[in-house]
Protein backbone atom coordinates (compact mmCIF):
# COMPACT_ATOMS: atom_id res chain seq x y z
CA UNK A 1 0.00 0.00 0.00
CA UNK A 2 2.72 2.46 0.99
CA UNK A 3 4.66 3.43 -2.05
CA UNK A 4 7.16 6.10 -2.79
CA UNK A 5 5.17 9.10 -3.94
CA UNK A 6 6.19 10.19 -7.42
CA UNK A 7 7.36 13.74 -8.06
CA UNK A 8 4.04 14.77 -9.54
CA UNK A 9 2.21 13.66 -6.42
CA UNK A 10 4.79 15.38 -4.23
CA UNK A 11 4.39 18.61 -6.20
CA UNK A 12 0.61 18.52 -5.76
CA UNK A 13 1.05 17.84 -2.06
CA UNK A 14 3.52 20.71 -1.62
CA UNK A 15 1.39 23.15 -3.60
CA UNK A 16 -1.66 22.37 -1.46
CA UNK A 17 0.45 22.74 1.66
CA UNK A 18 1.77 26.24 0.96
CA UNK A 19 -1.33 27.75 -0.60
CA UNK A 20 -3.15 30.66 0.98
CA UNK A 21 -6.49 29.68 -0.53
CA UNK A 22 -8.11 26.38 -1.46
CA UNK A 23 -7.04 25.45 -5.00
CA UNK A 24 -9.09 24.43 -8.00
CA UNK A 25 -7.69 21.91 -10.45
CA UNK A 26 -6.86 24.85 -12.73
CA UNK A 27 -4.95 26.63 -9.95
CA UNK A 28 -3.00 23.47 -9.28
CA UNK A 29 -2.23 23.06 -12.95
CA UNK A 30 -0.47 26.46 -12.87
CA UNK A 31 1.96 24.99 -10.41
CA UNK A 32 2.35 21.36 -11.36
CA UNK A 33 2.03 21.73 -15.11
CA UNK A 34 -0.20 20.01 -17.63
CA UNK A 35 1.32 16.54 -17.44
CA UNK A 36 0.31 13.99 -14.86
CA UNK A 37 -2.97 12.59 -13.62
CA UNK A 38 -4.13 15.37 -11.32
CA UNK A 39 -7.49 13.86 -10.23
CA UNK A 40 -5.69 10.59 -9.61
CA UNK A 41 -3.00 12.31 -7.53
CA UNK A 42 -5.63 14.14 -5.47
CA UNK A 43 -7.51 10.90 -4.85
CA UNK A 44 -4.30 9.20 -3.74
CA UNK A 45 -3.43 12.07 -1.42
CA UNK A 46 -6.95 12.22 0.00
CA UNK A 47 -6.70 8.55 0.83
CA UNK A 48 -3.18 8.92 2.22
CA UNK A 49 -4.24 11.67 4.62
CA UNK A 50 -7.54 10.05 5.64
CA UNK A 51 -7.49 9.23 9.34
CA UNK A 52 -4.45 11.42 10.00
CA UNK A 53 -4.22 14.65 11.97
CA UNK A 54 -4.39 16.62 8.75
CA UNK A 55 -6.85 15.73 5.98
CA UNK A 56 -7.11 16.70 2.33
CA UNK A 57 -10.64 17.84 1.58
CA UNK A 58 -12.51 19.11 -1.45
CA UNK A 59 -15.11 21.83 -1.04
CA UNK A 60 -16.96 23.11 -4.08
CA UNK A 61 -14.24 22.03 -6.47
CA UNK A 62 -11.44 23.52 -4.38
CA UNK A 63 -8.93 21.45 -2.51
CA UNK A 64 -7.14 22.22 0.71
CA UNK A 65 -5.58 20.64 3.75
CA UNK A 66 -7.26 21.09 7.09
CA UNK A 67 -6.84 19.61 10.53
CA UNK A 68 -9.14 16.75 11.47
CA UNK A 69 -12.35 18.06 12.99
CA UNK A 70 -11.95 16.06 16.20
CA UNK A 71 -8.66 17.84 16.96
CA UNK A 72 -10.12 21.34 17.17
CA UNK A 73 -9.45 21.38 20.93
CA UNK A 74 -5.71 21.03 20.23
CA UNK A 75 -5.67 24.21 18.20
CA UNK A 76 -7.44 26.31 20.75
CA UNK A 77 -6.33 25.02 24.08
CA UNK A 78 -7.74 26.52 27.24
CA UNK A 79 -5.54 26.47 30.25
CA UNK A 80 -6.67 27.20 33.75
CA UNK A 81 -4.33 29.22 35.85
CA UNK A 82 -4.80 29.52 39.55
CA UNK A 83 -4.93 33.12 40.59
CA UNK A 84 -5.45 34.61 43.96
CA UNK A 85 -8.23 37.11 44.48
CA UNK A 86 -6.99 40.58 45.35
CA UNK A 87 -7.76 41.96 48.79
CA UNK A 88 -10.17 44.50 47.27
CA UNK A 89 -12.05 41.75 45.46
CA UNK A 90 -12.14 39.60 48.58
CA UNK A 91 -13.62 42.44 50.63
CA UNK A 92 -16.15 43.30 47.95
CA UNK A 93 -17.22 39.68 47.71
CA UNK A 94 -17.63 39.47 51.48
CA UNK A 95 -19.72 42.64 51.56
CA UNK A 96 -21.99 41.39 48.81
CA UNK A 97 -22.36 38.06 50.62
CA UNK A 98 -23.27 39.69 53.95
CA UNK A 99 -25.39 42.53 52.65
CA UNK A 100 -26.92 41.36 49.39
CA UNK A 101 -28.53 42.74 47.41
CA UNK A 102 -26.23 45.74 47.39
CA UNK A 103 -25.40 48.45 44.91
CA UNK A 104 -21.90 49.53 44.17
CA UNK A 105 -22.42 52.77 46.11
CA UNK A 106 -23.48 50.74 49.13
CA UNK A 107 -20.44 48.52 48.85
CA UNK A 108 -18.28 51.62 48.76
CA UNK A 109 -20.03 53.04 51.80
CA UNK A 110 -19.36 49.86 53.75
CA UNK A 111 -15.76 49.44 52.54
CA UNK A 112 -14.98 53.10 53.01
CA UNK A 113 -13.05 52.88 49.76
CA UNK A 114 -14.07 53.14 46.12
CA UNK A 115 -14.68 49.90 44.25
CA UNK A 116 -12.73 49.75 41.00
CA UNK A 117 -14.64 48.70 37.92
CA UNK A 118 -12.42 45.66 37.47
CA UNK A 119 -13.11 44.34 40.94
CA UNK A 120 -16.76 43.51 40.28
CA UNK A 121 -15.82 42.18 36.84
CA UNK A 122 -13.40 39.72 38.38
CA UNK A 123 -16.04 38.49 40.79
CA UNK A 124 -18.55 38.11 37.99
CA UNK A 125 -15.98 36.36 35.81
CA UNK A 126 -15.32 33.97 38.65
CA UNK A 127 -19.05 33.28 38.63
CA UNK A 128 -19.58 34.20 42.26
CA UNK A 129 -21.50 37.43 41.82
CA UNK A 130 -24.19 38.50 39.39
CA UNK A 131 -26.24 41.64 38.87
CA UNK A 132 -29.82 41.17 40.04
CA UNK A 133 -31.79 44.06 38.64
CA UNK A 134 -31.83 47.67 39.72
CA UNK A 135 -32.83 49.38 42.89
CA UNK A 136 -35.83 51.65 42.43
CA UNK A 137 -34.18 54.75 43.80
CA UNK A 138 -32.89 57.80 41.93
CA UNK A 139 -30.18 56.74 39.51
CA UNK A 140 -31.59 53.16 39.52
CA UNK A 141 -28.24 51.57 40.45
CA UNK A 142 -27.51 47.96 39.59
CA UNK A 143 -27.63 45.68 42.57
CA UNK A 144 -25.49 42.62 43.06
CA UNK A 145 -26.05 39.25 44.70
CA UNK A 146 -23.99 36.11 45.14
CA UNK A 147 -24.62 33.02 43.01
CA UNK A 148 -25.13 29.33 43.60
CA UNK A 149 -21.52 28.79 42.44
CA UNK A 150 -20.44 31.11 45.21
CA UNK A 151 -22.14 28.90 47.80
CA UNK A 152 -20.69 25.72 46.37
CA UNK A 153 -17.17 27.13 46.04
CA UNK A 154 -17.12 28.21 49.66
CA UNK A 155 -18.86 25.07 50.90
CA UNK A 156 -21.96 26.84 52.15
CA UNK A 157 -25.41 25.35 51.85
CA UNK A 158 -27.02 28.78 52.14
CA UNK A 159 -26.15 32.33 53.05
CA UNK A 160 -27.48 31.64 56.53
CA UNK A 161 -24.37 29.50 57.03
CA UNK A 162 -22.20 32.60 57.02
CA UNK A 163 -20.93 33.21 60.53
CA UNK A 164 -22.61 36.15 62.30
CA UNK A 165 -20.89 39.13 63.82
CA UNK A 166 -20.65 37.45 67.21
CA UNK A 167 -18.92 34.44 65.68
CA UNK A 168 -16.51 36.71 63.88
CA UNK A 169 -15.76 38.58 67.07
CA UNK A 170 -15.25 35.35 68.98
CA UNK A 171 -12.85 34.19 66.28
CA UNK A 172 -10.88 37.40 66.80
CA UNK A 173 -11.65 38.53 63.26
CA UNK A 174 -13.00 41.87 64.42
CA UNK A 175 -10.08 42.83 66.63
CA UNK A 176 -8.62 45.93 65.02
CA UNK A 177 -5.03 45.66 66.27
CA UNK A 178 -4.55 42.01 65.40
CA UNK A 179 -6.25 42.48 62.10
CA UNK A 180 -4.10 45.40 61.16
CA UNK A 181 -0.99 43.40 61.95
CA UNK A 182 -2.27 40.35 60.12
CA UNK A 183 -3.14 42.52 57.20
CA UNK A 184 0.36 43.91 57.07
CA UNK A 185 1.91 40.48 57.27
CA UNK A 186 -0.38 39.06 54.63
CA UNK A 187 0.34 41.98 52.37
CA UNK A 188 4.09 41.69 52.63
CA UNK A 189 3.78 37.95 52.06
CA UNK A 190 1.91 38.61 48.83
CA UNK A 191 4.50 41.11 47.73
CA UNK A 192 7.27 38.65 48.43
CA UNK A 193 5.47 36.01 46.41
CA UNK A 194 5.22 38.39 43.53
CA UNK A 195 8.88 39.16 43.70
CA UNK A 196 9.73 35.50 43.67
CA UNK A 197 7.35 34.71 40.83
Amino acid at each position, binding site marked *: MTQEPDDFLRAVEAALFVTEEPLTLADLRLHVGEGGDLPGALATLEQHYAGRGVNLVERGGRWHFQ*TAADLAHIL*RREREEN*RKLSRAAMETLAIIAYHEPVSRAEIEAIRGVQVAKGTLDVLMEAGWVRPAGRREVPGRPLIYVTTVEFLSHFGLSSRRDLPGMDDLRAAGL*LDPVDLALEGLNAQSAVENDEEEA
Partner: protein
Amino acid sequence: MDDLFTPVAAPRPDMLTVSFESWEGPLDLLLALARTQKVDLREISILALTEQYLAYIDGARQLKLELAADYLVMAAWLAYLKSALLLPKEAQPEPSPEELALRLQLRLQRLHAMREAGARLMARDRIGRDVFVRAKPEGLRLVRRAKWDASLFDMLQAYGQVKARTQPVIHRVAVRPVMTLDEAIQRVGALVGAALDWTRIESFLPSGLDAPMAKSAMASSFVAALELARQGRLDIRQEGIFEPIFLRAATPAEERERLL
Protein backbone atom coordinates in the same frame (compact mmCIF):
# COMPACT_ATOMS: atom_id res chain seq x y z
CA MET B 1 24.29 30.74 -5.88
CA ASP B 2 26.27 33.06 -7.98
CA ASP B 3 23.43 35.54 -8.10
CA LEU B 4 23.76 36.04 -4.40
CA PHE B 5 27.44 35.98 -4.10
CA THR B 6 29.05 37.47 -7.12
CA PRO B 7 32.78 36.93 -6.78
CA VAL B 8 34.65 40.08 -7.57
CA ALA B 9 36.19 39.75 -11.01
CA ALA B 10 39.82 38.97 -10.40
CA PRO B 11 41.90 41.78 -11.87
CA ARG B 12 44.55 40.86 -14.37
CA PRO B 13 47.73 42.77 -13.71
CA ASP B 14 47.99 43.65 -17.37
CA MET B 15 44.48 45.02 -17.47
CA LEU B 16 44.03 47.97 -15.19
CA THR B 17 40.31 48.43 -15.14
CA VAL B 18 40.59 50.11 -11.81
CA SER B 19 37.47 50.81 -9.87
CA PHE B 20 38.09 51.19 -6.21
CA GLU B 21 34.41 51.41 -5.44
CA SER B 22 34.11 47.70 -6.04
CA TRP B 23 36.59 46.90 -3.28
CA GLU B 24 35.63 46.89 0.33
CA GLY B 25 38.90 48.24 1.57
CA PRO B 26 42.53 47.26 0.95
CA LEU B 27 42.21 43.80 2.51
CA ASP B 28 39.45 43.00 0.04
CA LEU B 29 41.61 44.13 -2.86
CA LEU B 30 44.58 42.18 -1.53
CA LEU B 31 42.48 39.03 -1.31
CA ALA B 32 41.30 39.45 -4.89
CA LEU B 33 44.91 39.99 -6.03
CA ALA B 34 46.08 36.99 -4.03
CA ARG B 35 43.56 34.82 -5.80
CA THR B 36 45.09 35.76 -9.16
CA GLN B 37 48.18 33.86 -8.02
CA LYS B 38 45.98 30.79 -8.43
CA VAL B 39 47.51 28.94 -5.53
CA ASP B 40 46.29 27.95 -2.12
CA LEU B 41 46.26 31.01 0.10
CA ARG B 42 48.74 29.22 2.34
CA GLU B 43 51.19 29.13 -0.57
CA ILE B 44 50.91 32.69 -1.82
CA SER B 45 53.99 34.80 -2.17
CA ILE B 46 53.55 37.85 -0.02
CA LEU B 47 56.39 39.57 -1.87
CA ALA B 48 54.64 39.02 -5.19
CA LEU B 49 51.35 40.14 -3.65
CA THR B 50 52.98 43.30 -2.36
CA GLU B 51 54.30 44.10 -5.80
CA GLN B 52 50.88 43.43 -7.33
CA TYR B 53 49.22 45.80 -4.90
CA LEU B 54 51.78 48.56 -5.35
CA ALA B 55 51.55 48.24 -9.13
CA TYR B 56 47.78 48.43 -8.87
CA ILE B 57 47.85 51.54 -6.74
CA ASP B 58 50.42 53.09 -9.09
CA GLY B 59 48.16 52.43 -12.04
CA ALA B 60 45.29 54.07 -10.23
CA ARG B 61 47.39 57.12 -9.54
CA GLN B 62 48.36 57.43 -13.16
CA LEU B 63 44.67 57.42 -13.97
CA LYS B 64 44.37 60.25 -11.44
CA LEU B 65 41.81 58.31 -9.45
CA GLU B 66 41.11 59.53 -5.99
CA LEU B 67 42.33 56.93 -3.63
CA ALA B 68 40.91 56.48 -0.16
CA ALA B 69 43.46 57.03 2.59
CA ASP B 70 43.34 53.45 3.79
CA TYR B 71 44.52 52.20 0.39
CA LEU B 72 47.51 54.53 0.61
CA VAL B 73 48.23 53.51 4.19
CA MET B 74 48.24 49.89 3.10
CA ALA B 75 50.49 50.76 0.17
CA ALA B 76 52.99 52.48 2.47
CA TRP B 77 52.92 49.57 4.86
CA LEU B 78 53.43 47.06 2.07
CA ALA B 79 56.30 49.11 0.65
CA TYR B 80 57.89 48.98 4.09
CA LEU B 81 57.25 45.24 4.34
CA LYS B 82 58.76 44.69 0.91
CA SER B 83 61.97 46.53 1.73
CA ALA B 84 62.22 44.74 5.07
CA LEU B 85 61.75 41.38 3.39
CA LEU B 86 64.57 42.21 0.97
CA LEU B 87 66.99 43.24 3.69
CA PRO B 88 69.67 40.80 4.75
CA LYS B 89 68.43 38.73 7.65
CA GLU B 90 70.68 40.20 10.35
CA ALA B 91 69.58 43.75 9.53
CA GLN B 92 65.88 42.95 10.02
CA PRO B 93 63.90 45.06 12.44
CA GLU B 94 61.50 43.73 15.06
CA PRO B 95 58.97 42.29 14.61
CA SER B 96 60.50 40.31 11.79
CA PRO B 97 59.13 41.00 8.31
CA GLU B 98 58.47 37.27 8.00
CA GLU B 99 56.13 37.48 10.93
CA LEU B 100 54.38 40.52 9.46
CA ALA B 101 54.03 38.73 6.15
CA LEU B 102 52.67 35.64 7.88
CA ARG B 103 50.22 37.79 9.78
CA LEU B 104 48.92 39.30 6.55
CA GLN B 105 48.64 35.85 5.04
CA LEU B 106 46.65 34.59 8.03
CA ARG B 107 44.29 37.54 7.78
CA LEU B 108 43.68 36.89 4.10
CA GLN B 109 43.02 33.22 4.83
CA ARG B 110 40.46 34.13 7.47
CA LEU B 111 38.66 36.66 5.32
CA HIS B 112 38.62 34.18 2.46
CA ALA B 113 37.26 31.42 4.71
CA MET B 114 34.40 33.61 5.94
CA ARG B 115 33.62 34.81 2.44
CA GLU B 116 33.29 31.23 1.26
CA ALA B 117 31.31 30.25 4.34
CA GLY B 118 28.91 33.13 3.68
CA ALA B 119 28.42 31.98 0.11
CA ARG B 120 27.79 28.40 1.20
CA LEU B 121 25.33 29.62 3.79
CA MET B 122 23.44 31.63 1.20
CA ALA B 123 23.35 28.59 -1.09
CA ARG B 124 21.47 26.48 1.46
CA ASP B 125 17.81 25.64 1.08
CA ARG B 126 16.32 28.75 2.53
CA ILE B 127 12.79 29.25 3.75
CA GLY B 128 10.85 31.42 1.36
CA ARG B 129 13.23 30.77 -1.51
CA ASP B 130 13.84 27.03 -1.72
CA VAL B 131 11.53 25.56 0.85
CA PHE B 132 8.19 26.95 1.89
CA VAL B 133 6.04 26.94 4.95
CA ARG B 134 2.29 27.41 4.94
CA ALA B 135 1.26 30.82 3.70
CA LYS B 136 -1.54 31.40 6.15
CA PRO B 137 -1.40 28.98 9.01
CA GLU B 138 -4.45 29.00 11.24
CA GLY B 139 -2.20 29.36 14.24
CA LEU B 140 -2.29 27.69 17.62
CA ARG B 141 -4.14 29.53 20.32
CA LEU B 142 -3.54 29.16 23.98
CA VAL B 143 -6.36 30.75 25.93
CA ARG B 144 -5.46 31.35 29.53
CA ARG B 145 -8.39 31.30 31.87
CA ALA B 146 -8.06 32.39 35.43
CA LYS B 147 -9.23 29.99 38.06
CA TRP B 148 -9.86 32.21 41.04
CA ASP B 149 -8.68 30.90 44.29
CA ALA B 150 -10.21 31.99 47.60
CA SER B 151 -11.13 30.22 50.79
CA LEU B 152 -14.03 30.90 53.12
CA PHE B 153 -11.56 31.97 55.79
CA ASP B 154 -10.01 34.54 53.43
CA MET B 155 -13.44 35.98 52.82
CA LEU B 156 -14.44 36.10 56.48
CA GLN B 157 -11.15 37.67 57.37
CA ALA B 158 -11.64 40.28 54.68
CA TYR B 159 -15.11 41.02 56.01
CA GLY B 160 -13.79 41.29 59.54
CA GLN B 161 -11.21 43.77 58.31
CA VAL B 162 -13.78 45.88 56.56
CA LYS B 163 -15.89 45.94 59.70
CA ALA B 164 -12.94 46.68 61.94
CA ARG B 165 -11.73 49.40 59.62
CA THR B 166 -15.06 51.18 59.36
CA GLN B 167 -16.21 50.82 62.97
CA PRO B 168 -16.16 54.09 64.96
CA VAL B 169 -12.83 54.07 66.72
CA ILE B 170 -12.81 54.51 70.52
CA HIS B 171 -9.51 55.70 71.88
CA ARG B 172 -8.67 54.54 75.34
CA VAL B 173 -5.48 55.60 77.03
CA ALA B 174 -3.88 52.73 78.84
CA VAL B 175 -3.26 53.29 82.57
CA ARG B 176 0.44 53.30 83.20
CA PRO B 177 2.05 53.34 86.65
CA VAL B 178 3.33 56.86 87.30
CA MET B 179 4.57 58.85 90.27
CA THR B 180 2.47 62.01 90.38
CA LEU B 181 4.04 65.39 90.91
CA ASP B 182 2.25 65.78 94.26
CA GLU B 183 3.63 62.45 95.43
CA ALA B 184 7.11 63.49 94.35
CA ILE B 185 6.94 66.90 96.06
CA GLN B 186 5.87 65.24 99.28
CA ARG B 187 8.51 62.58 99.05
CA VAL B 188 11.44 64.81 98.05
CA GLY B 189 10.34 67.52 100.51
CA ALA B 190 10.31 65.03 103.36
CA LEU B 191 13.58 63.39 102.49
CA VAL B 192 15.62 66.52 101.72
CA GLY B 193 15.11 67.70 105.27
CA ALA B 194 17.19 64.77 106.40
CA ALA B 195 19.96 65.42 103.86
CA LEU B 196 22.21 68.17 105.17
CA ASP B 197 24.91 67.60 102.58
CA TRP B 198 24.66 67.46 98.79
CA THR B 199 22.92 64.23 97.83
CA ARG B 200 22.30 62.84 94.33
CA ILE B 201 18.71 63.09 93.17
CA GLU B 202 18.64 59.33 92.55
CA SER B 203 18.87 58.79 96.28
CA PHE B 204 15.46 60.37 96.72
CA LEU B 205 13.74 57.80 94.51
CA PRO B 206 12.06 54.76 95.99
CA SER B 207 14.16 51.61 95.52
CA GLY B 208 13.13 48.51 93.62
CA LEU B 209 11.11 50.21 90.88
CA ASP B 210 10.67 48.67 87.43
CA ALA B 211 12.05 50.62 84.49
CA PRO B 212 8.94 52.60 83.36
CA MET B 213 8.10 53.49 86.96
CA ALA B 214 11.71 54.49 87.66
CA LYS B 215 11.63 56.88 84.72
CA SER B 216 8.35 58.39 85.87
CA ALA B 217 9.71 58.76 89.41
CA MET B 218 12.88 60.46 88.17
CA ALA B 219 10.96 62.87 85.96
CA SER B 220 8.47 63.74 88.70
CA SER B 221 11.20 64.05 91.36
CA PHE B 222 13.19 66.44 89.17
CA VAL B 223 10.15 68.64 88.58
CA ALA B 224 9.40 68.39 92.34
CA ALA B 225 12.98 69.52 93.11
CA LEU B 226 12.57 72.54 90.82
CA GLU B 227 9.30 73.42 92.56
CA LEU B 228 10.83 73.04 96.03
CA ALA B 229 13.82 75.14 94.97
CA ARG B 230 11.44 77.85 93.76
CA GLN B 231 9.79 77.75 97.17
CA GLY B 232 13.24 78.16 98.73
CA ARG B 233 13.08 74.81 100.47
CA LEU B 234 16.07 73.19 98.78
CA ASP B 235 19.14 73.94 96.66
CA ILE B 236 20.07 72.24 93.41
CA ARG B 237 23.56 71.87 92.03
CA GLN B 238 24.85 70.43 88.75
CA GLU B 239 28.48 70.69 87.66
CA GLY B 240 27.71 70.59 83.96
CA ILE B 241 25.33 69.28 81.34
CA PHE B 242 24.44 65.61 81.94
CA GLU B 243 26.38 65.65 85.17
CA PRO B 244 24.69 64.23 88.29
CA ILE B 245 22.17 66.49 89.97
CA PHE B 246 22.64 67.09 93.70
CA LEU B 247 20.03 68.32 96.17
CA ARG B 248 20.23 69.49 99.78
CA ALA B 249 18.03 71.31 102.23
CA ALA B 250 18.06 75.05 101.66
CA THR B 251 20.46 77.06 103.76
CA PRO B 252 18.43 79.50 105.86
CA ALA B 253 18.60 83.02 104.41
CA GLU B 254 20.35 84.58 107.48
CA GLU B 255 23.08 81.91 107.37
CA ARG B 256 23.61 82.48 103.62
CA GLU B 257 24.06 86.20 104.32
CA ARG B 258 26.57 85.33 107.03
CA LEU B 259 28.55 83.20 104.61
CA LEU B 260 28.55 85.93 102.02
